């Protein structure tokens, strides 16, 4: 951290990663806005048909923009963390800029085709959950991600240091997330096969590839911020990653209970996905141990908040909230209810949002040469996010339990159950508004930090470039 400005001049390409983080946080704001509109749709259902954008378009953008800002945040983080680990600058710095604008262009394309072409062109809007963006955007996105992987591998191959495990894990996660995009692109006549391989994309992203990136990034941030011995952090990382893969790859089975695949998955999925919280607990445990052992004072408290939040959010949100409804005997009743929604709104922001904001708070002050930025806005923003999302999660959880009981056990109709749930959807909207305030505050803070620059250092950096 204190070596920030020296490494800036050593690795000039770092400054190019700033726009990735700013774009990621701004897209997150848009995603939250869409979520707020949708929660109003739940409260007054005819608003969905009266507003210019119906629920399905908002929902598709809510998911697709999330995937986009997640990728932007991860790619920015990868480019930011790679130089120090490999001891050399990124191989092709100009690609960093080009990839950013390319990905942003894809994002704009996805938004325009969702708004104007839903139902009109299968190549532009495909409408499968998480893969709503049409084939054209899928192919372009794959090409963009491939060029990122090329740049990362080219940099790693000319590394001055010995290949470290965090870097290998990050690279594996990046390659995995692209490889796993391919099965979702194959056309199947059967809905069973199509869903089977659609989950390869979704599950192997959020519960394997992205999880590897998260574990690697947490390890690298701990390495950068603390004085814990590298061997300890790397050993824990290796065990975590091995366990994530060992349980997560066959844990895929929890998506195969009721989609028309054979009953063998009820056994396999139940067994392996019940073990999935174990590596996530290990992540909390190792981070706790590392921070306790650490004697070096950590100046950037906001990053610390985000990292602790991300490990706990990952364990509780993805691990425990997932375990709640992963066993087939329970999932038979809870599948396709608001309980899944509660889990998704805990696991994704709890892990990946906090992680991306954490890297942004690590990178942007250093890039802007403002290491002693005032931290109270970041802390308040973090707590607002926590309070907002916890309210949302608990409201959805209660709604889900009521829905399961009334709809799946008592057999009431969908609409009458939704009418019962209205107060809880109102509670969810309140949580969403609080979280939105937190997101706005953090976006404002990050933009503020990134625009106020210390002039002398900025000039030096420019000369170096």
């Amino acid at each position, binding site marked *: 951290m204190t070596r920030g400005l020296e490494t800036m001049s050593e690795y000039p390409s770092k400054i190019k990663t700033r726009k990735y983080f700013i774009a990621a946080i701004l897209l997150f704001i848009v995603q939250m806005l869409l979520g707020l509109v949708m929660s109003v*749709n739940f409260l007054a*259902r*005819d608003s*969905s048909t009266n507003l210019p954008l119906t*629920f399905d378009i908002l929902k598709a953008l809510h998911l697709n923009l999330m995937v986009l800002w997640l990728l932007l945040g991860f790619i920015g983080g990868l480019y930011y963390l790679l130089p120090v680990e490999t001891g050399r600058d990124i191989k092709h710095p100009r690609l960093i800029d080009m990839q950013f604008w390319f990905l942003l262009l894809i994002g704009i394309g996805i938004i325009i085709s969702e708004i104007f072409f839903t139902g009109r062109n299968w190549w532009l809007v495909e409408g499968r959950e998480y893969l709503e963006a049409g084939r054209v955007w899928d192919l372009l996105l794959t090409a963009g991600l491939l060029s990122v992987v090329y740049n990362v591998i080219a940099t790693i191959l000319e590394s001055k240091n010995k290949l470290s495990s965090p870097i290998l894990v990050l690279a594996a996660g990046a390659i995995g997330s692209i490889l796993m995009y391919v099965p979702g692109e194959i056309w199947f006549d059967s809905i069973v096969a199509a869903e089977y391989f659609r989950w390869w994309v979704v599950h192997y992203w959020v519960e394997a590839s992205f999880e590897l990136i998260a574990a690697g990034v947490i390890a690298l941030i701990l390495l950068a911020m603390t004085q814990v011995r590298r061997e300890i952090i790397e050993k824990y990382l290796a065990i975590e990653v091995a366990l994530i893969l060992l349980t997560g790859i066959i844990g895929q089975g929890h998506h195969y209970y009721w989609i028309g695949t054979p009953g063998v998955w009820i056994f396999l999925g139940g067994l392996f996905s019940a073990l999935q919280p174990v590596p996530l607990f290990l992540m909390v445990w190792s981070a706790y141990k590392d921070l306790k052992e650490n004697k070096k004072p950590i100046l950037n408290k906001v990053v610390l908040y985000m990292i602790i939040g991300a490990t706990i959010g990952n364990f509780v949100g993805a691990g425990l909230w997932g375990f709640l409804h992963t066993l087939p005997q329970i999932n*038979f009743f809870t599948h396709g209810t608001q309980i899944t929604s509660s889990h998704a709104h805990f696991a994704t922001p709890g892990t990946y949002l906090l992680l991306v904001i954490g890297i942004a708070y690590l990178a942007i002050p250093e890039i802007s040469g403002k290491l002693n930025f005032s931290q109270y806005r970041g802390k308040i923003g973090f707590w607002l996010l926590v309070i907002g999302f916890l309210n949302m999660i608990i409201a959805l959880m209660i709604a889900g339990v009521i829905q399961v009981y009334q709809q799946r056990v008592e057999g009431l109709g969908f609409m009458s159950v939704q009418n019962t749930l209205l107060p809880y959807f109102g509670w969810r909207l309140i949580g969403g508004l609080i979280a939105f305030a937190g997101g706005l505050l953090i976006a404002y803070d990050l933009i503020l930090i990134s625009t106020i620059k210390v002039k002398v250092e900025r000039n030096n950096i420019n000369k170096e470039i």
Partner: protein
Amino acid sequence: MNNNRLILIGLLIPAILMIPFSIVSFYTDFANRNPDPLSVTVDFGQNAYNAVEGKKAFEQYQCTGCHTIVGNGAYFAPDMTTVYKRIGENDAALSNFVLSGAPAKGMPPMRDRGMKEDDAYRITAFLKYTNMLDTNGWPGAGSWERDGNPDSTPAQNLDFSDIWQVVAGIVFINILIFAILFAYENKKNDEGA
């Protein structure tokens, strides 16, 4: 290198196991008795529409943006896996419902979204096919069974006069959350001092 070997083992063992598991999932002697989507058709007038075209239309009109199919999708609208049975296996009623929607409940008339009759017929064929899937018993016998008519319950809006339980819940949960917040912040201040 030991670390990397550990990671490699963690990756390769389950990845290799996924190959036979995937084969078992689709090899017809073991797999569930799902119909061939090409052979599932509905007749409208002179034409027969099959479930494969229907699947493409179902994706294109982004039905899972609000509904779920085999439980996957959005939770704004009911699950479509067994809707064919719920509507009394009535092809005409189902395709009409798709075209005219239920605006008061949040479903736009799909006609307004540019859907032609042909696509509604194709989607009907697709929903006939999903109703025939062997989903290991999901979504439960007895749940959502109705008399062959669309759900007649009207959608309500939030009534603020009858939400005191929820207000009590909000207050209680937020006291708990703030307790965590203050405990964390105060502990840090003590350490700092």
